[in-house]
């Protein structure tokens, strides 16, 4: 691993306590002292069950969620909520959400969805050529025909929507892509298309990926390292091979034992 990771999360604490709970100090934290690093061009998966805090961690990294304690360092500098981040940092960390249809504005065409990112971040806008050509190129990168550009999200399939979400993120030439259950809502025959796309983009662009999921099979296919969360805590972080072959924590073993496979049924 390189000397300084792209993202370093240290002792992160997030809670959603009501005022009364805070006074009593009894309620658990949603994220309770989580630390991990993510180097450039690495794929780290955070796995856990619902309520384990994995999505909250992802939202802190993107800046959609403020944390109470600890630090999130990006490229060596601490970052807070997205409103207090520099435009350059905001550009560098992009997110792909779970529900492909809900994360795209149904009233906008695909072209305007992508162009909007450049109006927000003029520094990322393509110079020296027309935006149309740049959009065609982006659509091609995610495996979409140029004529998809004139359509609205409501006229697209789930897989196409997710490709548009990825194109929108790539439009800003990010260094980190945060995918929160980005393939969970897709049909299996489409899921492998998106996984291939993500793996290819990572290799071609040197993207770091933070991949949040509950699907251990998907994790095994695309992650370099895996962090297992349980009740707000990180119980184990290991390389994907180690985690699946030699799980160290009892909870990881329980999670692996419960996971179903097609084989051996």
């Amino acid at each position, binding site marked *: 691993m390189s000397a300084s990771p792209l993202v370093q999360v240290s002792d992160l604490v997030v809670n959603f306590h009501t005022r009364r709970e805070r006074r009593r100090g009894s309620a658990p934290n949603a994220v309770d002292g989580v630390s991990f690093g993510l180097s450039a061009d690495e794929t780290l998966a955070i796995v856990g069950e619902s309520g384990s805090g994995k999505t909250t961690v992802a939202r802190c990294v993107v800046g959609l969620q403020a944390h109470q304690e600890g630090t999130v360092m990006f490229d060596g500098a601490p970052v807070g909520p997205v409103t207090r981040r520099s435009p350059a940092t905001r550009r560098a960390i992009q997110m792909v959400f779970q529900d492909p249809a809900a994360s795209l504005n149904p009233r906008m065409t695909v072209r305007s969805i992508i162009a909007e990112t450049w109006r927000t971040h003029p520094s990322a806008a393509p110079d020296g050529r027309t935006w149309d050509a740049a959009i065609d190129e982006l659509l091609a990168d995610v495996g979409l025909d140029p004529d998809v550009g004139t359509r609205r999200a409501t006229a697209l399939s789930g897989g*196409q929507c997710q490709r548009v979400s990825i194109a929108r993120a790539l439009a800003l030439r990010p260094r980190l892509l945060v995918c929160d259950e980005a393939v969970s809502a897709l049909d299996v025959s489409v899921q*492998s298309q998106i996984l291939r796309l993500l793996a290819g983009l990572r290799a071609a662009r040197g993207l770091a990926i933070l991949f949040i999921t*509950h699907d251990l*099979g998907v994790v095994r296919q695309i992650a370099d390292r895996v962090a297992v969360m349980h009740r707000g805590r990180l119980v184990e972080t290991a390389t994907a091979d180690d985690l699946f072959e030699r799980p160290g924590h009892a909870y990881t073993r329980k999670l692996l034992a419960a996971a179903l496979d*097609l084989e051996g049924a």
Partner: protein
Amino acid sequence: MSRMSKVTDQVAAELDPEPAPLLQVEHLSIDLPGPAGPVRVVDDVSFTVAAGRTTGLIGESGSGKTMTASAIIGLPPPGAAVTGRLLWHGDDMVTMAEQDRRRLRGRGIAMIFQDPQAALDPTQTIGRQVGEILRRGGMPAKEVRRTVIDLLDRVGIPDPQTRHAQYPHQYSGGLRQRAMVATALAGSPELILADEPTTALDVTVQARILALLRRVRDEEDTAMLLVSHDLRVMAHVADEVVVMYAGRICEVGSGREVLNSPAHPYTRALVVSVPAVRSRTAIAEPLPGSPASPAERPSGCPFHPRCAKAQDRCASEVPRMRQVAAGRQVACHFPEET
């Protein structure tokens, strides 16, 4: 009531060596109104559900699996035109009087929905909802209470004496789904229809609910029609599977055989796209395109635009279901060797 009919069935079985299957779906087609005329979302679907067996209905979005299930439970969406026959012990449910259908619902056929949170009434106690069908059948209140507590105990809800008086919000997702199973069992149905019963649940909870469903099949001798897109779930609970694509059936057979050696190229593509947990697999070679929509169903075999083995014939001629092995049927012009 259904106990009675089970007894008469046994008598009938002794007289007649080939009893009719519990449920026979014959040439079922469903048309939904669309902006450009009716859309055939289920097209000429036939399969049977045997008593005491679990049949899995597999399909991706737009395959018509949920629509097929909704026709069987007798709750198709408004405006749907259902044709074909749905034979329940030989009686056609499509032409049956609404009154008789209603009697069947809950007692003959019960349903477990995907989202227990949405299917349970938040303002009623769990016990009241589980016992509703018993109360409506005229069972005295004391006996209802005792039966409900017994049901909750059977589906593995801890401390049913206290738990039956609680509300859905006091239950976790897994416990709510157990309560749904108890509700379904309350009418002693012969068939339980379960639509994605574990999709909304965490893996550890999912494993326990699947074990419960298997136990229900074995101990209560209840047949189950399980609707899911999750092949891993199917591999663990389905005795027989029916694979659907774009409103049509592409493959039918025993769950083990179909999922171990798929004969239809579509089933094969589904099977290889499931990532394994216990061994490292490469990301599957993806199928091109998206699942076909019934509104724009391709000519011939609906799968042909995505199929690597497709030839001219596949685009022009609809493949008929044909037997490739005992109990194994495939709708493909060029099926894989099994």
